[in-house]
């Protein structure tokens, strides 16, 4: 009986409410030393990949910079390229927006990262959801939801065409014959569509893994279809067993409908882990951490993201706001990925929840935003992670922590060894393996041959 091997990644804890920056153990979210520590820990744990999220404007609330959470983050590509020099085996995944980048430059940067890292680059393609980000870019105006996915699709297709424009044998570099390039057409490309009309020659050789791994994190039907049709892995926020299982089934069905083998796509929810020596200790720790993450003020702000209006007049310890959400109004909080696709439905669900349990506003928000999926002893957490994976609720997880950068340490030191003992997680990297190889993904042949349908 063969058991699924678990995929594990780690995202850098930073700009979000679940980073407890005022904990004395919390370090810088900018300094190189933080990234280096985090990467070395992840590599010590033999994790598959490091994951950086992205935001291209500072978060604002009511037009003012939101100053209660971590503010500021470094440039994703730059950090990943530097990490390629200190971590030898682990995958380097960057969330990079397709709305405010051009395919030629994206393809070059990822190809460079892939060459410098020996085949460890991954791109989490996001489309951005907030219009004011456009004010930081030449493109300026923001694209509608449909156009963003059209652009994302065309961007990815263009980038893949560029990655394919050099054969893996294009560089001959034979001094005797004086032949550097195989022929004069290396790098030729032409791509046109609704969003792009570009042609010429690409500058950067094909990378060791053919194409960097492509991840996606959309959750609308359009986002899921885009991911199902084109991604190697999906980063999801659905982490409770039942919802994770439902998301998994839905996406794998979409993958099948897109003519691909469901095994070609890894589904990786984000997850927080809180450990204790006993179950009780872990629960107490979790309660303490979660109290700091969703403090009274944060509970108001998170509710505001759903209601899309100022709720500062409401008492966090009182009932849910008696006003209706105004999803059509200008966005009250900018710069965060949206929390809901349907505000009215979400408010209704929250009200039902509060009613059923007698929850206050803050209780409700704490319940909904509990990122710590796995709380318990290391054995229990290892069991749970394995249960999700063996029962097809996920193919693995991208782990976060409330402390930057050292929060990953205890997971690596205490949970990973148990998974290794059970034979569901690697005990060492295969020397020289690419990220694709580590994830068990096929090596793409040129010109989309790998897109050939595998019916199942």
């Amino acid at each position, binding site marked *: 009986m063969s058991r699924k091997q678990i995929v594990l990644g780690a995202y850098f804890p930073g700009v979000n409410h679940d980073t407890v920056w*005022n904990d004395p153990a919390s370090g810088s979210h900018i300094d190189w030393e933080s990234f280096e520590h985090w990467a070395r820990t992840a590599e010590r744990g033999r994790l598959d990949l490091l994951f950086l999220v992205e935001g291209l404007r500072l978060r604002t609330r009511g037009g003012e910079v939101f100053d209660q959470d971590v503010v500021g983050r470094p440039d994703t590509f*730059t950090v990943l390229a*530097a990490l390629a020099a200190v971590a030898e085996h682990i995958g380097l995944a960057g969330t990079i927006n397709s709305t405010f980048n051009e395919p030629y430059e994206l393809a070059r940067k990822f190809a460079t990262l892939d060459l410098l890292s020996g085949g460890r680059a991954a791109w989490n393609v996001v489309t951005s959801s907030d219009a004011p980000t456009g004010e930081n870019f*030449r493109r300026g105006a923001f694209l509608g939801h449909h156009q963003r996915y059209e652009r994302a699709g065309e961007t990815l297709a263009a980038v893949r065409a560029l990655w394919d424009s050099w054969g893996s044998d294009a560089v001959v570099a034979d001094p005797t014959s004086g032949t*550097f390039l*195989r022929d004069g*057409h290396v790098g030729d490309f032409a791509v046109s569509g609704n969003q792009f009309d570009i042609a010429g*020659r690409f*500058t950067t050789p094909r990378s060791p893994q053919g194409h960097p791994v492509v991840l996606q994190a959309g959750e609308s039907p359009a986002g899921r279809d885009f991911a199902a049709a084109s991604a190697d892995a999906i980063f999801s926020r659905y982490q409770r067993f039942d919802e994770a299982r439902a998301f998994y089934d839905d996406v794998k069905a979409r993958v099948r409908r897109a003519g691909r083998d469901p095994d070609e796509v890894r589904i990786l929810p984000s997850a927080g882990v809180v450990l204790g020596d006993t179950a009780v200790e872990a629960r107490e720790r979790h309660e303490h951490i979660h109290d700091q993450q969703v403090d009274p003020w944060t509970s108001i702000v998170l509710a505001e993201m759903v209601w899309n209006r100022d709720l500062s007049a409401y008492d966090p310890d009182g009932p849910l706001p008696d006003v209706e959400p105004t999803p059509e109004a200008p966005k009250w909080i900018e710069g965060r990925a949206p929390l809901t696709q349907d505000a009215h439905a979400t408010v209704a669900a929250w009200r039902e929840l509060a009613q059923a349990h007698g929850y206050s506003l803050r209780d409700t928000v704490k319940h909904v935003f509990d990122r710590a999926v796995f709380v318990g002893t290391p054995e229990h957490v290892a069991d749970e992670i394995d249960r999700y994976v063996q029962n097809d609720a996920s193919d693995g997880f991208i782990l976060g922590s409330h402390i930057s950068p050292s929060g990953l340490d205890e997971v690596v030191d205490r949970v990973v060894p148990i998974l290794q003992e059970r034979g569901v997680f690697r005990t060492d990297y295969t020397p020289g393996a690419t990220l694709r190889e580590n994830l068990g993904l096929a090596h793409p042949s040129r010109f989309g041959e790998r897109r050939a349908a595998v019916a199942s």
Partner: protein
Amino acid sequence: MSISDTTTTGGPLHLAVALDGAGWHPAAWRDPAAHPRGLFTARYWTDLARTAERGLLDLLTIEDAFGLQSGDHLSGADRRTDRVQGRLDASLVAAFLAPTTSRIGLVPTVTTTHTEPFHVASALSTLDHDSHGRAGWRVQTSVRADEAAHFGRRSVPGLRRADLDTPAARELVAELFGEAADAVEVVRRLWDSWEDDAEIRDALTGRFVDRDKLHRVDFAGEHFGVAGPSIVPRPPQGQPLVVSLAHGYDPALLAARVGDVVFTTPHDADDAVRIVAQVRAAEAAAGRTAPPLRILGDVVVVLADTERAARERLARLDALDPLSSDAAVLATTPAALADTLLSWRRAGLDGYRLRPAVLPTDLDAIVDGLVPELQARGAFRTAYGETTLRARFGLPRPASRYAAGADAAVVPTPTGATA
């Protein structure tokens, strides 16, 4: 302060090395000592950077472009297969080199023509954070039609060298330089948009930042607008070092308006005098209030133990594929090169950017031959002193222009620290 009072004539030289492919000679990759199969690997760049750092050089630059190499840098890529073709993204190579080196300045080339200034600002700021204050930016414009077609956002008519003096060409160049000046201005504003002490982590009030110390930059120019603030906190140097290459008055004017250091191409001692005068005139015309530009002369170097061996090396390379260069080509011994550099610098040059004809051969010769020669004459450092790249050039750390009481100059006037 007067324009020239920080220009030293007797102090230590600044020495930079310009890295590009297998070296600046088109036949460099065919040299027996070259590593042409390694050009796209981490190992190749790490070895070069470590050598340059062993030689205590001020900084290394990494060439880049959005189009394949071309015999004529104005035109599109030729379809030649007998020369080095292909490049890695220079800013990511520099990022990779940050943790593998500790003192040398890292200066990637990044064009202003097709990039997003917001991304450029974030990338260089992050390079400065990751390298602890060693980042610079070689600002470059892209005039090539093929590069524009790679982006499809604007069309550039395409220029031939012979057309450079036509009104259409002048207009294009003026447009691209104007855009470059805007791009540098935006990037500098973004670097300033976080005051140094914006991150307060005030547990008592629950505030991570003091939002009064974060500033919109609200730049609105002809080609783009950027709102800001930056997503990256202010870099360690305040502003990474801004450098550009100038072959004539217009590019010198761009450097004078927005730069910290300018690379020039003197061909002899008299030419160096003319160039320095031109740069200083450009500074006066630009009404520069920042510290005077540090002027480095670019030269291509082919080094050997004897003058004759150096010339023969060059001849052997030229026989394979002749070098045509904008910069002087000095094929000589390290000692004679030291003489030349010291004699030209009397014109007021602050130092040189050396372009090794063959890598790693001529870089090794710079580090193991030229550097000891200059050290023996007291003209080059024997250990790294300052830690940041700006400080190495005697440039003060600028205050954020948005900080209360800050000087309004593009780059604030120096506080007295000079080379």
